[in-house]
């Protein structure tokens, strides 16, 4: 049973400058008494009192300004940041796609990188080798798959990363905005694949500034603002509240288009 349950979770980042991070300060500070600033490092509350509950089949888009806490929320759902207060209970195999560059070695081939990426997501080498053909086909990289990763464009890297995460049948898929680098045609292909994946028993959480991508991938949306969830609801409603009527109309258009295409397929 795949589920994400978060209760009153907060993520506080201590901000260490050179002074608070040094042991000297921690040791001598107690003797000398406090001078000027507080002994404890100042804190940035990146997420505050988040409560949410997601279940199988949910496809949620996150909208919000830069620095609103979308990425931090995704990282919390991935289990990278365990909440400093509150609880986050994530049940299911998580596959995050945050930064395309991280965990990839530019000097080795796309093929080898596929395997490493898989290893990071808890797969074995054998399991990944079985999936190579399928991933190569999906990414449409062809012979490029044998080339070192540094020769790839950003979009090609995104294709590779998406190919890997979708091939390993994750139960919880977390996507950050970086995937916007792919072209529209590939996005369409990715959408069908992601939809199938989520239908097969999964959860998708996707943060993006592109309403088009949001409308293509998600069913509902959450507006993250100042580290809290300001609004949850249908994607059109949330976009209307966040960006206004014009944007909402655009979203509706895409939703209708998608529906038509799905029937057509």
């Amino acid at each position, binding site marked *: 049973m795949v589920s994400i349950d978060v209760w009153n979770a907060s993520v506080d980042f201590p901000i260490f400058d050179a002074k608070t991070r040094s*042991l000297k300060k921690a040791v001598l500070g107690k003797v000398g008494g406090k001078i000027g600033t507080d002994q404890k490092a100042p804190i940035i509350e990146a997420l505050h009192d988040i409560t949410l509950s997601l279940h199988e089949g949910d496809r949620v888009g996150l909208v919000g300004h830069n620095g609103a806490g979308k990425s931090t929320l995704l990282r919390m759902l991935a289990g990278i940041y365990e909440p400093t207060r509150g609880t986050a209970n994530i049940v299911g195999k998580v596959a995050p796609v945050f930064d395309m560059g991280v965990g990839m070695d530019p000097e080795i081939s796309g093929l080898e990188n596929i395997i490493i990426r898989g*290893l990071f997501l808890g797969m074995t080498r054998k399991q990944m080798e079985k999936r190579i053909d399928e991933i190569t086909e999906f990414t449409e990289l062809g012979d490029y798959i044998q080339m070192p990763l540094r020769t790839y464009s950003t979009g090609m890297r995104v294709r590779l990363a998406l190919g890997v995460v979708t091939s390993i049948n994750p139960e919880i898929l977390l996507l950050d905005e970086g995937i916007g680098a792919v072209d529209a045609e590939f996005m369409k292909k990715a959408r069908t694949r992601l939809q199938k994946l989520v239908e097969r028993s999964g959860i998708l959480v996707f943060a993006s500034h592109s309403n088009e991508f949001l409308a293509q991938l998600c069913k509902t949306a959450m507006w993250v603002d100042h580290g809290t969830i300001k609004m949850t609801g249908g994607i059109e409603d949330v976009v209307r509240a966040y960006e206004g009527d014009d944007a909402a109309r655009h979203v509706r258009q895409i939703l209708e288009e998608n529906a038509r295409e799905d029937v057509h397929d």
Partner: protein
Amino acid sequence: MEDSVIPEDSVIPKAVAPTRSLARAVEDIRQGVVQRELWLHLGWQDIKQRYRRSVLGPLWITISMGVTALGLGILYAVLFKHPLPTFLPYVTTGFIVWNFINGCLTEGMSTFITNEGLIKHLPAPLTVYALRTVWRQTLMFLHNLIVYVIMIAIYFSYIDHTYHMDTAGQTHPGLGLWSLSAIPAFFILALNGLWLTLLIGIISTRYRDIPQVINSLIQLAFYLTPIVWSPDDLFGSGGTDRTWAKVLFQFNPLYHFVQVLRAPLIGQHVDWWSWAIVGGITVVGWALALLAMRNYRARVSYWV
């Protein structure tokens, strides 16, 4: 956590233990070991990357070790008036073992700092990065072992029977089947490298002065540990009574770590208490590392 308001209709599944629990720390380590294909690969990749596009590749590890060991060995053999055939294998082997310990310490303390990008982007157990570091050091050690093999091949006839390094020195049993105890000894050393990496790695991530402190002490530790000199040198060959020195250098735990691995490799006498001390430190160290993992495992991603 206790006083948080929970919606009435929901039940918190008990599947996941609280963040700060021993169960989670142990699970991290267990999961890290399970994902061995990952760190085995990453460790290799580290070595290959360092020597990419060089003709000799990782063989440079071996060459630089050989040159250093030969230089140091000859220099100190002349300074302390030791016979080269027994002293050179001693210095070489000691230096190789030291390099492993030194590597685990200096690269272990910055493990989480250097893996910052991965830690912030992929939810892998912390232990994976610690194992990556220790495995990389193990690979370096294996490369250096080539120098040892060459050295032993040259001087084998001098140390395959009972021998003295110095006329007034200790009697050594010489190489034999018992030399195989080097294998468990290395395993124990690696096990210590792992707890050290986890513990010092966590502390150094929080307090960035610690790596500087360790860096400034490590050179001193090298000279205080019998590597380029022998305990025989302390035992008053000049007629002066230096019993205090005999006792004092035994308080250096690094000596015992070097000794349990070096002695069997070159057929030297090893005191039983060396093993006892190494065993004791292994247990205490792991207890401390588990405690650090229990309390601060989840903080590392916040601190890096």
